[in-house]
């Protein structure tokens, strides 16, 4: 207790009204803070806090509940800065709350256009913070800046035209003096990109198009002019390595999602992991998980960065449990593929070949009559955050074991309309979900905990040797990181679509998670 109190006093001397580049680089070293979507730039979502640990987590109790009153999937990870919780919600609501009591300090809501079609719910996954401003993307593809203390709008830029089908839901990533922002819209046949805005001026510093034009590198992987509606959205926050000076970001499906007839070619850089220079926006390396995809297997995942010993040598790695059912580990300096193996049951590819490309099996394309393929469109895992414990050496992934019958049909492009070219039927009662602890060096599943239906909640790892997560039936759970034993759970009554986070407040550790339409705070009894 004393140790934490000392650190807290030290931190509070540099009061949190001005979050600097150094603060962001410090990541989770400041115990009272959570300053970016994934906790820190590594995307490990691993907290050094250990007050809550295996021997006491069974006594965890609810500290407070904040009810948003806003219907919709609550997917956000809150930020916490020195006693204040900053969280975004569905329909571009946002709140600042007192971390001790859960009481609202301010509430902001964006004025969205009345008729706006978005895929997959009117969600938002969280703020970014820099200096004295919070940054939030909006469903009509804007980037908005709010004042930390009051929630007033103090700036905003249009990212792109929502009428073309663009939308934005990801928490931005602040890198040095830039706000890096992903875009959504591939379900509507948009051309995807990643943007970086200068924090001071709001001007666009660079745009990396995920879909190249003919003549550009990768431009020859699109037939005719199918690149114009190529997809490749960047709708989930990426990660950053300050030493290598590289941003890692996932890209999404090509369009139309399930019908590849008019877009022959690998369709770069859809369903890929891209490594980008944050100063110039130039592509340093890429890897495409599912070339010419017809299953909607977006690669919008958190690229988890960790340094591990491989064959006796310390290597800089990035790992991704992919929607297509395979687990991949790369050298993040150059994209060298080190591990590529299934972590769920797959039926579409025999293996990932030596050249890094999947060896696709026959009968794994959607057809007009329907074709059973594993996994389903939502995949082996989806956008939900995995977490990595450097002590256990395991990545905790919310996995899904669901197959589906995929159908495809011709689809005509119409601006503002969905452009899928197909859909699927998932059998209601078959398939299940599981929390899986995966060894990134072998892709082996070391332990699992099964859910009756697949979960869409992310995981949080802590130095207390715990993994926190949620599930579709409404349980928040704490598991032993090494054995997978469930040590505590709370039934909150509604599906959980977010990942947990944790912070110190005074001398107490809190865990926060969005559940149903509520933000729930958990702590140990006094």
């Amino acid at each position, binding site marked *: 207790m004393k140790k934490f109190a000392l650190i807290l006093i030290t931190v509070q001397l540099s009061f949190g009204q001005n979050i600097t580049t150094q603060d962001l680089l410090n990541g989770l070293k400041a115990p009272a803070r959570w300053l970016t979507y994934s906790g820190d730039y590594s995307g490990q979502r691993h907290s050094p806090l250990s007050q809550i640990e295996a021997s006491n987590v069974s006594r965890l109790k609810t500290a407070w509940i904040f009810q948003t009153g806003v219907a919709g999937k609550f997917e956000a990870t809150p930020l916490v800065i020195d006693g204040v919780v900053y969280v975004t919600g569905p329909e571009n609501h946002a709140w600042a709350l007192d971390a001790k009591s859960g009481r609202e300090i301010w509430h902001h809501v964006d004025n969205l256009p009345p008729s706006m079609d978005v895929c997959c719910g009117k969600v938002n996954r969280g703020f970014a913070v820099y200096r004295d401003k919070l940054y939030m993307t909006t469903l009509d593809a804007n980037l908005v800046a709010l004042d930390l203390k009051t929630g007033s709008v103090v700036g905003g830029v249009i990212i792109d035209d929502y009428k073309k089908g663009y939308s934005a839901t990801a928490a931005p990533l602040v890198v040095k003096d830039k706000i890096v922002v992903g875009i959504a819209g591939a379900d509507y046949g948009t051309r995807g990109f990643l943007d970086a805005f200068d924090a001071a001026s709001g001007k666009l510093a660079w745009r990396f198009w995920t879909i190249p034009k003919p003549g550009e590198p990768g431009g020859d992987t699109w037939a005719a002019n199918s690149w114009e509606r190529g997809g490749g959205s960047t709708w989930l926050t990426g990660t950053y390595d300050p030493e290598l000076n590289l941003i890692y970001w996932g890209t999404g499906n090509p369009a139309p999602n399930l019908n590849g007839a008019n877009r022959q070619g690998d369709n770069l850089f859809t369903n890929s992991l891209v490594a980008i220079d944050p100063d110039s926006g130039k592509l340093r390396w890429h890897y495409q998980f599912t070339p010419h995809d017809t299953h909607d297997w977006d690669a919008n995942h958190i690229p988890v960065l960790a340094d591990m010993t491989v064959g006796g040598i310390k290597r800089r790695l990035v790992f991704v449990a992919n929607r297509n059912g395979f687990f991949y580990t790369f050298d993040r300096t150059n994209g060298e593929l080190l591990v590529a193996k299934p972590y769920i049951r797959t039926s579409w590819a025999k293996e990932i070949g030596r050249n890094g490309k999947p060896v696709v099996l026959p009968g794994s394309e959607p057809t007009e009559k329907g074709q059973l393929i594993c996994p389903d469109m939502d995949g082996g895992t989806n956008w939900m955050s995995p977490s990595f414990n450097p002590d256990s050496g395991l990545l905790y992934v919310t996995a899904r074991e669901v197959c589906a019958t995929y159908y495809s049909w011709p689809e005509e492009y119409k601006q503002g309309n969905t452009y899928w070219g197909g859909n699927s039927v998932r059998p209601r009662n078959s398939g299940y979900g599981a929390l899986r602890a995966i060894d990134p060096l072998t892709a082996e599943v070391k332990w699992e905990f099964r859910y009756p239906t697949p979960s869409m909640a992310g995981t949080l790892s802590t130095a207390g040797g715990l993994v926190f997560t949620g599930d579709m039936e409404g349980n928040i*759970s704490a598991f032993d990181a090494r054995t997978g034993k469930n040590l505590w759970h709370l039934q909150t009554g509604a599906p959980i679509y977010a990942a947990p986070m944790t912070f110190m407040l005074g001398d107490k550790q809190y865990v926060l998670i969005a559940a149903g339409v509520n933000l729930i705070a958990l702590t140990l009894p006094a």
Partner: protein
Amino acid sequence: MRTTAAQTIIVLLLFCICAAGAQLPYDDSPAAVEQGLRIFRTKCARCHNLNAQGYTGRDLTQQWKRKLTDAQLATLITQGIPGTAMPPIKLDSTQTAHVVVYLRSLRGPARVDTGDPKKGEALFWGKAECSKCHMVRGRGGRLGPDLTQVGFLRSKSFLIRELRNPSDYVPRGYDPVMLVTNSGERVKGVRKNEDAFSIQIMDENENLRMFEKSDLRDISQLDQSLMPAYDPDRLSEAEYNDLLRYLAGLQ
């Protein structure tokens, strides 16, 4: 007196207009149903599944809790259901009408012209033993769904399928399960709900039983519905038609 006649005519006209408004003036031809399916699979299937049997969104082939007119259904589709995950769906009135027609094609009412409903009723409460598990107007069993309005809510083809192959489709709340407790007790029943730590069932004796999974050794989902298949060994063709006619009349 002439005024009264005029008033009567006006009242009748208004009645007709109002009655017409309660039902959309639509064509329910196979072409219209096909159009509705095309819109459904693009706008609705992501949440309600391609076969409309539900995924994250509700099973639209299930019995609906509320009786909706076509106009109310159309409004629900285009305006969404506030406070829920059902958003407004951008459709013009023709498209909406097609979707309504498609949804209606998935459900009742059942139109059956052959068979004797009185004989069917006797079978329901007698030889066919339906009433052992199903209730009609407050009488009968609880293990299966209440059938008081089954003729209104389900189509003829649905009733035929359920009678012949009940395991093909089991509605939510009636999935057959077999539980084995830590002390070795075997409990068969229908699952009302389940999460990672608990399961709630009704057993074959109609007892509601709630279990913590830590008290159970095994939970198995059974392949076969608890409802028997009414094949020619169980009911003759004539008896089958009589039962069907009775069920279709339960409106």
